C-alpha cells in the first residue's frame, strides 16, 4: 500500500480511514498541500475551501473516534465541479455573470456527499456554463493537462479531470451534457462515468441543457468511480426527471470485473475514419483484452449517429437559451449599468449585464437556441432534432438487442494544444462526436484509459455504453479492462505522467 496519501485511491483511503490508520484531517491536509504545490500550474480549482474541508474532516474523525457507524466513504475528500450549488461556497459555473454568488442551498448530490461525511475540497474549473471541450471558455482562465501543461484537460469538466489526474483529489464530481465527464477523463488518463439520465439528481445542478445534463463521478480507478457513483445516485423527489428505482449494483460490478460471456458491440460509426491512429490502435488492443477476458465481440451499426451532432447542437442551445435567461442581474450575481445611460430601465441593465457577463461561446449558443426555437423555425430545427433523438434511441435499442454493451474510443483525438481549436467551434464540437449519442438517448457511459497514443505519448480513452439503468455493466467492463491494462503496463497509467512539483516550481 502506498504511503503517499495523495496517490492513494479512494478505495484505499476508505480502508485506511476505516481501520483508523489515518485520519481524514491528515488525508485532507495532504491533498490541500498538494494543491498548494501544483494548482498554480494546473488551475483545476476556481475555489479551494481548505478551512471547510478540514472542519468536515475533523467532524468525521470525531464521530469515528466516538464509535459512530459511518458511511464507507466517510472522510474521503472530494472536489466538486463549480456547476453544482454548494451552500456557503461560491458557485460560478465558470462565468463572470455569477461572480460572487454564494448559493443559499446545496444541490441534492452535494447533500449526499455531506451526509456520507466526504469533505468537499473545493470547486473545480469548467468551460463557462459547461459549454466547451477544453475549459478554455472558463471566464477565469483554462485548466491545464497534467500530462502536458500546454494542452487542454478536456471540457467542460477539465477542472475535475485534472484535479484527480494531478493527485489533488482522489475523487471529483463532473457533469456530462455531451461528454463533459468522459472526454476530459480520456485526455487526462483518468476514469469518468455519466450515469443513466435520471440516475443522479439534477437538483442544484445549474442547467445547461436540462434533458441532457447528468452528474457523475471522476476518479483514477474504475472502482473509485463506482464508489462515488453509489454515494450520489438514487431517487430525489426534488427532481421530477429522477428515476424512482434501485441504484444499479455498480460497486459490486466493479469489484467482480467479470466480462465472461458478455457481448461487446463495436459501433461501426464510432471507429476508424476521423479517429487519431494512436487512439484507434489503443482501442483495438483494449477490445482484444476484453476478448481475452472472455467477452464476445459483435459489430453493430447505428446509422442515425451521423445526425447526432447536428441534433445535439439544436437541442442544447435551445434549452440553454431558456435556462440561461434567468441570469438577468435582478436577483443575484453580476449587475452592470449600461454606459452613458442616466436612469437605465430594468431591460437596459439586463442587456448590459448579459453583454458583460457572458463569454462568446455562451452568447453564440444563446443566439443559436433563440433562433432554433423561434416561431416559423421551431419545426424545422427543434422539432427535427427531437425526431433525430428518437431515431438515435431506436438505433441504441436495436444495438442492445445484439450486444450487452457498446464500445468506442471516447474522443477522436488525444489532448490538443490550448488555443488550437479556440477559433474553430466546429472542430471543437467534433471532439464530442462519440460521447453525444449517449446523452441524446439518456443511456450511461464510462471512459477508462486505454493507454498512450504512439504519435504523441498522450492518453487515449475507451468508452463503454450500456442500456438505461444498466450502469453496472459499464463498471464490469471498465474494471476488467483496467485490471488487464494495468498489469500489462506494470502499474497505473498515471504513474507515467510528469511530476508536477518540478514543473510547478
Amino acid at each position, binding site marked *: 500500500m502506498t504511503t503517499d496519501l495523495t496517490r492513494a485511491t479512494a478505495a484505499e483511503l476508505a480502508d485506511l480511514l476505516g481501520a483508523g490508520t489515518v485520519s481524514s484531517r491528515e488525508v485532507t491536509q495532504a491533498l490541500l498541500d498538494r494543491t498548494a504545490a501544483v494548482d498554480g500550474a494546473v488551475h483545476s480549482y476556481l475555489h479551494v475551501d481548505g478551512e471547510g474541508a478540514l472542519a468536515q474532516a475533523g467532524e468525521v474523525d470525531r464521530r469515528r473516534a466516538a464509535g459512530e457507524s459511518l458511511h464507507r466513504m466517510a472522510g474521503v475528500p472530494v472536489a466538486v465541479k463549480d456547476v453544482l*450549488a454548494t451552500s456557503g461556497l461560491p458557485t460560478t459555473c465558470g462565468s463572470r455573470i455569477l461572480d460572487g454568488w454564494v448559493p443559499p442551498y446545496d444541490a441534492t448530490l452535494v447533500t449526499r456527499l455531506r451526509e456520507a461525511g466526504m469533505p468537499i475540497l473545493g470547486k473545480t474549473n469548467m468551460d463557462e456554463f459547461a459549454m466547451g471541450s477544453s475549459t478554455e471558455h472558463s471566464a477565469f482562465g483554462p485548466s491545464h493537462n497534467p500530462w502536458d501543461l500546454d494542452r487542454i484537460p478536456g471540457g467542460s469538466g477539465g477542472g475535475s479531470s485534472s484535479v484527480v489526474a494531478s493527485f489533488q483529489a482522489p475523487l471529483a464530481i463532473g457533469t456530462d451534457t455531451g461528454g463533459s465527464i468522459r472526454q476530459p477523463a480520456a485526455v487526462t488518463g483518468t476514469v469518468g462515468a455519466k450515469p443513466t439520465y435520471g440516475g443522479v439528481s439534477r437538483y442544484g445542478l445549474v442547467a445547461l441543457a436540462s434533458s441532457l445534463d447528468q452528474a457523475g463521478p471522476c476518479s483514477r480507478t474504475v472502482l473509485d468511480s463506482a464508489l462515488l457513483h453509489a454515494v450520489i445516485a438514487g431517487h430525489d423527489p426534488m*427532481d421530477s*426527471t429522477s428515476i424512482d428505482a434501485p441504484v444499479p449494483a455498480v460497486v459490486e460490478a466493479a469489484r467482480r470485473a467479470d466480462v465472461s460471456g458478455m457481448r461487446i458491440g463495436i459501433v461501426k460509426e464510432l471507429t476508424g475514419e476521423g479517429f487519431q491512429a494512436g487512439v484507434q490502435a489503443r482501442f483495438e488492443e483494449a477490445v482484444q483484452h476484453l476478448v481475452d477476458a472472455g467477452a464476445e465481440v459483435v459489430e453493430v451499426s447505428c446509422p442515425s449517429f451521423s445526425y447526432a451532432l447536428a441534433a445535439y447542437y439544436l437541442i442544447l442551445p435551445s434549452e440553454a*437559451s431558456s435556462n440561461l435567461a*434567468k441570469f438577468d442581474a435582478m436577483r443575484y450575481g453580476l449587475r452592470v449599468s449600461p454606459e452613458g445611460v442616466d436612469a437605465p430601465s430594468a431591460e437596459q441593465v439586463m442587456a448590459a449585464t448579459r453583454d458583460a457577463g457572458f463569454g462568446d461561446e455562451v452568447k453564440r449558443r444563446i443566439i443559436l437556441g*433563440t433562433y432554433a*426555437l423561434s416561431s416559423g423555425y421551431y419545426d424545422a430545427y427543434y422539432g427535427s432534432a427531437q425526431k433525430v433523438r428518437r431515431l438515435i434511441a431506436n438505433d441504441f435499442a436495436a444495438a442492445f438487442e445484439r450486444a450487452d454493451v457498446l464500445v468506442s474510443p471516447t474522443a477522436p483525438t488525444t489532448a490538443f494544444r490550448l488555443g488550437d481549436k479556440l477559433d474553430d467551434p466546429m472542430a471543437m464540437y467534433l471532439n464530442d462526436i462519440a460521447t453525444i449519442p449517449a446523452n441524446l438517448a439518456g443511456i450511461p457511459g464510462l471512459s477508462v484509459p486505454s493507454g498512450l497514443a504512439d504519435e504523441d505519448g498522450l492518453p487515449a480513452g475507451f468508452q463503454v455504453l450500456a442500456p438505461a439503468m444498466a450502469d453496472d455493466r459499464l463498471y464490469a467492463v471498465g474494471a476488467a479492462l483496467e485490471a488487464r491494462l494495468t498489469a500489462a503496463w506494470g502499474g497505473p497509467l498515471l504513474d507515467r505522467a510528469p511530476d508536477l512539483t518540478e514543473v510547478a516550481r
Partner: protein
Amino acid sequence: MSTATEPVLGFDEALATYDPVMGLEVHVELGTATKMFCGCPTEFGAEPNTQTCPVCLGLPGALPVVNEKAVESAIRIGLALNCSIAPWCRFARKNYFYPDMPKNFQTSQYDEPIAFEGYLDVELDDGSTYRVEIERAHMEEDTGKSLHVGGSTGRIHGATHSLVDYNRAGIPLVEIVTKPMLGAGERAPEVAKAYVATLRDLLKALEVSDVKMEQGSMRCDVNLSLMPKGSAVLGTRTETKNVNSLRSVERAVRYEIGRHAAVLSGGGSITQETRHWHEDTGITTSGRPKSDADDYRYFPEPDLVPVAPAAETVEALRATLPEPPAERRRRLQTTWGYSDLEMRDVMNAGLVELVEETVAAGASPAAARKWWSGEIARRANTEGEDVPTYAERLGVTPAHVVELEGLVTAGRLNDSMARQAWEGVLDGEGTPTAVADARGLELVQDTGALEAAVDAVIAANPDVADKIRDGKVQAVGALIGQVMREMKGQADAGVARTIILERLGQA
C-alpha cells in the same frame, strides 16, 4: 401618460352597424396550500418575499415539481366546464424577459392543455340561456408582483425605482379561454358579465379558488372586435387586461364596443394591442402593441415529466363535482320561494352563498334576501366591492341577520327600527342588539302608555270614533296613525289597532 379621451360612439348606434365578437380569458388562482412547483405557502397578504424558496425565486440549479393538488383542481375545473381531459399533456416554457418573472420564462401549457373543448351555459336577465364555448383550460404559474415607487400613478412611468415581491411567483393558476363569442349583439356586455359571474359561482362551488376579483385571485382579460353586420370576417381585436370586477367586465365591453365603432365608422382601423382598463373613469387606454406573431419560443418544459392522469383518476374526480350551478339555482329558488326576478337579483349580486349561509343559520329566506340586498349593497357598490367581500371586511355575518330578524319577530323592533339597527351594524357599532340598546330602539311594550295614547286620540276624534262604533272599521287607520305619532313611532301598530277596536266595541 396620455389620458386624452378617445371618441366613443353611442352604444345603440354602434350596435346598429356592427356585431361584437368577444373572447374572455380568465385567470384563476387556485386555493392550494402550496405553490405550483414548490412547497412554499400561498397565503395572501404575507410580508413581501417571505414565501419564497430557490425554486420559485428561480435560483440557479433549482427544479420544479408539479403540485398534484393543483392538477386535480385543474381537472375538476375542466370537467365542470364540460371539457375533455387530456390523457397525456406537458408543460411548456413561455420565454420572455420581465423582472417579476424569476426564470424569465413562465412554466405554462401551450398546445397540450389539460382540459379542452367544453362549454358553460349562462342564464341572462330575460331568462334565456347563452352557451359559452370553452376552448381550453390550462395550468400555469403566476408571476411576482412589481411595485413601482416614486411616480404619481403607481405605474412604471415616472417611477424612480421598482420593488418586486415574489410571494405570488409560482402560485398555481388555471387560465380558462373561451372560443370567440358571437351573436350576443346588444347583449354582449350582459353576456360577458353573466359568463364571468357564472364561472365565478362555479369555481366557488368547486372550492378550487376563493375567486376574489378585487384581490386578484380571479382576473379577466377581455378580447373584443367588431364586424360589420352581416359579415363573417372577424375584425381586429383589442385585449383589455385586468378587468377585475363583474361591473367592470360589463362596462369595459360596452366601452370598447363604442370606441371600436367610433374608429371604424370614421374610416380608421383598430390597432391590435393590449388596453388598460381604468376603473375610475370607465375607459381603456392604449397599452403595448400585440401581434399574433408575438414569439414566446414555446417548447416542452424539459425539467418536468408529462402529466398523464389515469382515466380512473379523472372519473373519481368527476364524482367529486358539486351540483351544477343551474340545477342548484333552481333547487334553491324552489326552496326559498323566490320569484324569478328575486332569484336573478340575488344571483347577479353574488349573494347566493351568503343567503344560503344565512338561511342555514336560521333566518327566513325573505329576511336573508332583504337584508343582504338593501343598504349593504348600496354601500358595497359605493366602495366598488361586492357584498360578500364588503361584508367580510366589515365583519358583518349571517348571524347578524338572524339576530336582526329575531328582534323583529320577537316584537322588539318594527321594520323602520330594524333598518336603523342594520345601519348601526354596518357602521361598526356592534351586533343588532347592541345597536338597538345603544340607540334606544325599542317598541313600547308598556300597554299603559299605549292605552293612554289611544284614549287621548279617541277623545280628540269623536266623529271618527263614532263611525267605527257604527261598524266602519276601515276608518281605524286614521286613528292608528295618530296613536303612532303620539308614541313617536315606538309602538306596534298592530297592538294599537287591537286596543282601539276594543275601546270602540269592535273587537
